[in-house]
């Protein structure tokens, strides 16, 4: 691996384009994320937020444009994509836990199968990661026996067990009952405190205001505006940004979007 400039961006995205048939989902998106940054992506649904995240670990292949993780161009044809994915954690809206495995084995299976860690080491690591998300006592529970909030925390532990360089969150709390959202956001806030690099698609404006180093507002396949939370919440340059944030406030409660 080539030596790194210390504060070179850990993720670099250049002029990403993606279309599905007649629908152009990404129309030229560029973005840099620095080490330890928490970047929150907001925007109406169907604007390509998920597609952008999935381009980072190449679950979706862009039509053109480049993505780098550190010095590695993940969009290059010769890139070993499985090796890259092992370094990029991803958390999904509907958890996607492996239903036939206990929480412990859900977390251990990645290190065992991808990194070839011996079983006992992988279990040890999995126990640590479960403890980190506050679920040490649920190690032997199956996903079907866990609440939504617990499932999502296991999913986070599963991603963390791979010791990722960055974490991608795609609406991690959107499928949760309101009373379970807090426990997941708390884990994410803790991660942010530990300087994990995070790229988070969410409608949780309280989280964004508290934790985000930067907020990206996406609409119609473009990044419309980006900046620190204070700028987007109180001094948006684009009228569409203010309009969208107003709508979110109506939808998710005033205190979340503007208060606090």
């Amino acid at each position: 691996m080539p030596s790194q400039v210390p504060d070179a961006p850990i993720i670099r995205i250049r002029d990403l384009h993606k279309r599905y048939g007649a629908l152009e989902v990404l129309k030229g998106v560029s973005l840099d994320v620095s080490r330890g940054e928490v970047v929150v992506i907001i925007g109406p649904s169907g604007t390509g937020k998920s597609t952008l995240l999935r381009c980072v670990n190449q679950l979706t292949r862009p039509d053109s444009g480049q993505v780098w993780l550190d010095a590695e161009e993940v969009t290059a044809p010769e890139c070993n994509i499985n090796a890259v994915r092992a370094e990029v954690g991803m958390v999904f809206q509907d958890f996607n836990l492996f239903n036939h495995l206990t929480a412990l084995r859900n977390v251990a299976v990645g290190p065992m199968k991808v990194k070839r860690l011996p079983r006992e080491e992988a279990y040890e690591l999995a126990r640590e990661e479960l403890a980190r998300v506050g679920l040490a006592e649920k190690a032997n529970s199956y996903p079907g026996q866990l609440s939504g909030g617990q499932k999502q925390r296991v999913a986070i532990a599963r991603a963390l067990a791979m010791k990722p360089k960055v974490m991608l969150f795609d609406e991690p709390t959107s499928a949760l009952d309101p009373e379970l959202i807090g426990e997941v956001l708390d884990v994410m806030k803790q991660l942010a405190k530990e300087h994990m690099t995070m790229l988070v698609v969410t409608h949780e404006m309280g989280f964004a205001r508290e934790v985000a180093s930067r907020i990206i507002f996406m609409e119609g396949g473009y990044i419309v505006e980006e900046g620190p939370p204070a700028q987007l919440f109180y001094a948006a340059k684009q009228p569409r940004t203010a309009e969208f944030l107003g709508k979110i406030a109506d939808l998710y409660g005033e205190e979340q979007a503007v208060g606090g």
Partner: protein
Amino acid sequence: MTGLAEFWQMIWPSLGNGLVITLKLSVGALLIGFLIGLPTALLRVYGTKGMRAIATAYVDVIRGTPQLVQLFFIYYGLADTGLNATLVSLGLPHGLLVLQPMTAAYAALGINSGAYQAEYFRGAIQAIGGGQMTAARALGMTRLQSIAHIVLPQALRLAIAPWSNEAAYMVKYTSIVSLIAVSDLFGEARRIMSRHYNQMVMLPFVGLMYLAIVLLITWGMHHVEQRTKIPGLEIETQRT
């Protein structure tokens, strides 16, 4: 009492031998069907366009034609003189495709079962959904690892119930092999009937023997299903 002893003498050991043949054929054909069916299902779900087309054609042809026609094709059709002359002219051994009755029976039943099993496995694989596959790939697992460690362990569990139906059908359908002179349970029963003209006794009796095997399989597979159940997932298993 003498009646019972006489009856025993009449059916033993021939029905016992027939039973062994029937069980051997059932197990063997189910196994062949599994070895064909699972890869076929995987190709239909994960294969390239060409592989999917081939797998689909196989399943459609087998499921769309009578099993007896398939059996006769493999036993009589492949023994066709013209076909064998062609094989010889291609430098292949004479009689390569002229099969023994038992071989033809295994082949016909196994190939037939493969198509049905492929459909059960495909349904089970698709019921698992793509989300877990995506999560596995996101961890860095290869496609093959994701299938082997994530999709299949769940799909095979889901397939137990339909598979036990297939096993029950198989036991009953093996009876058609008596038509190509295999001495299975039904073949032996027919021989006894032709000698003693006692079909009103033999047919119900041999029918009950099939029933007993089927009940045993159903009970056994139910037991397997219970043993492999994923805790917390009862509702999903029942739905499929």
